[in-house]
């Protein structure tokens, strides 16, 4: 350390004072003794031989630990001053790093004082080399880190707590998600059904939902939808949408009327300040006795078109154009379409998590899109409900992290008569 040199050249002189006065005042303030600076520095100083034997140690550090000079110098090693755990850390990390780099800084260790107490410190060491570049000794500074370590311990504790809470949140989310989906789909005689829910993030509950349930004799209702947003607020809307759809279908099973009622309920519930809306497709399934197969009437409110995969290997969108989002306008326009499902036909409903996914690993890549999905369906047809859902699952898997939104798929298929399946 250099002391006092600059005061001679007058650059720091105060106006109106004599140079001599200035110098004397500085000298007094600086206590011009390097030895005093060393011994009573506000940090501990320690020099050791390469094997760790203490060669020099300042008064500050001796006082902190309660040792006398003669107890340590030439008798003990730096690692003797450490706790056992600290010694292990010193031998396995600190020492090798110091040998390799010539210096190590800011390592947290604990020193043992003679009274048995422990002093958390931050340690920095450098290797002093001789003129020939060979290491001679190790110089170490030791900073009292009691406050800092208390703060860091608190941070560590908070981080562990946060990790535990995150686990708990994941568990809650998974449970909540399960309650929003039917545990199993009902068995509809003469129909093969399958569904899949793909969770994009375990940190948030997604807003996709579906269900299939019996209505009055010989009719079934099904729906699949997507509430805007994620998390608890979206889950509340999902829950409301689900039981409203079930109740509305009992009240009046006409699909357009069911969605009309849902629209009214959402509109009333979330009127004004916090509009909540969703896209839904609702279907009424009825078996067609003599003709065989099923008749399905679909009503859609702003939902991506269903896909119809025919027994003859063709596939196309089942458009329900002009249907508006449910829950936004007091009188949403709801579009319907009716179609006959014959043996071997499969109807596939999905949410836009699938078509909005980015297949390329690059997150800026193009989205998958309706047309690509249609091509996929054409390659798949003819198929069955479980095969179609399995194919979509595999497709989602290939997208990996490119699926940034939850995805629900529901497929229904009229199986071919067993005789046709025989070769």
């Amino acid at each position, binding site marked *: 350390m250099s002391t006092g040199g600059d005061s001679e050249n007058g650059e720091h002189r105060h106006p109106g004072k004599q140079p001599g006065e200035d110098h004397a005042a500085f000298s007094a303030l600086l206590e011009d003794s390097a030895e005093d600076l060393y011994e009573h520095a506000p940090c501990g100083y320690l020099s050791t031989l390469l094997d760790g034997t203490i060669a020099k140690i300042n008064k500050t550090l001796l006082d902190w630990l309660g040792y006398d000079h003669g107890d340590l110098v030439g008798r003990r090693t730096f690692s003797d001053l450490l706790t056992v*755990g600290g010694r*292990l*850390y010193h*031998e*396995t990390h600190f020492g090798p790093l110091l040998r*390799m780099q010539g210096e190590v800084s800011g390592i*947290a260790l604990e020193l043992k004082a003679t009274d048995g107490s422990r002093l958390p410190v931050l340690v920095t060491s450098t290797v002093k080399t001789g003129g020939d570049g060979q290491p001679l000794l190790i110089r170490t500074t030791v900073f009292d880190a009691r406050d800092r370590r208390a703060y860091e311990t608190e941070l560590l504790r908070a981080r562990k707590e946060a990790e535990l809470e995150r686990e708990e949140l994941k568990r809650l989310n998974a449970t909540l998600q399960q309650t929003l989906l039917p545990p199993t789909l009902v068995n509809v005689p003469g129909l093969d059904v399958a569904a899949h829910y793909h969770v994009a993030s375990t940190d948030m509950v997604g807003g996709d939902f579906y269900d299939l349930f019996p209505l009055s004799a010989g009719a079934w209702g099904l729906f699949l939808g997507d509430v805007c947003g994620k998390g608890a607020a979206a889950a509340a809307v999902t829950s409301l949408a689900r039981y409203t759809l079930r109740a509305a279908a009992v009240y009046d099973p006409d699909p357009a009327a069911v969605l009309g009622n849902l629209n009214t309920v959402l509109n009333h519930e979330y009127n004004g300040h916090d509009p909540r809306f969703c896209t839904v497709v609702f279907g009424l399934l009825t078996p067609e006795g003599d003709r065989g197969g099923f008749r399905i009437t679909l009503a859609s409110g702003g939902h991506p078109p269903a896909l119809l995969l025919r027994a003859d290997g063709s596939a196309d969108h089942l458009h329900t154009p002009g249907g508006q989002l449910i829950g936004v306008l007091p009188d949403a326009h709801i579009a319907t379409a009716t179609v006959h499902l014959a043996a071997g036909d499969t109807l596939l409903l999905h949410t836009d998590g699938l078509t909005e996914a980015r297949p390329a690993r690059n997150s800026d890549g193009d989205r998958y899109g309706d047309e690509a999905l249609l091509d996929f369906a054409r390659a798949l047809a003819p198929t069955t409900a479980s095969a179609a859902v399995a194919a979509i699952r595999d497709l989602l898997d290939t997208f990996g992290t490119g699926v940034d939104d939850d995805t629900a798929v529901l497929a229904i298929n009229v199986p071919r008569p067993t005789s046709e399946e025989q070769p």
Partner: protein
Amino acid sequence: MPAHGFGCDQHMWRLVVPLLERECTVVLFDHVGAGRSDLSAWSRERYSTLDGYTEDVLEICDELALGPVTFVGHSVSAMMGVLAAAREPKAFSGLVLLAPSPCFIDDPAVGYRGGFSAEDIDELLESLDANYLGWSGAMAPVIMGNPERPELGEELTNSFCRTDPDIARVFARVTFLSDNREDLAAVTVPTLVAQCSGDAIAPPEVGAFVQARIPGSRLVTLNATGHCPQLAAPEETAAAITDFVAATR
């Protein structure tokens, strides 16, 4: 084939490798979870005992078709060598156990002194935690390798003793809580036990214990002090290894 111990990575051998290479072909590796190994290959199940590490050693020998090697295991890796040589003696022409300890924990019931108690190991885990505060945020991307950012290379060499804290905790437990005293007798290949003077981790009686249990093994006490003779006294360490290799050829 030198294998690094708990704490750092293959850079531990940097000073002895040039000396060994005058006489031998040297195969270096990082244990999975350390250094620049593929961290995604690490799993808690596989690396919660020394068996996973031991299998890795045998896999390296097998994959590279090395033929019989002299395995130099430092610290915990010495026991990996013991387990590997017991399982497949044909893969090894000899073992050098550098600062080994088959069991770090004292066992007063049989008068064994490993040097530590289980509480001491908990204290080490605290030390690890205290020094890993900033790890996950700052170090992970560096350790994971950034080929497109070569300026991080320098930082990487300055951090060779840093590991993912979760992995380090598991490895610390494996290292300090394993007890391989019973496995020593199964070693049939020529073995050199090289212990250090004044080793704070493996006391001298541990070296003698290892030598006594491995049939036909030889014990040398290096002048090197501390637990890492390959850093503290590279010439002496390399000479002990090459002399042993020459004697077992």
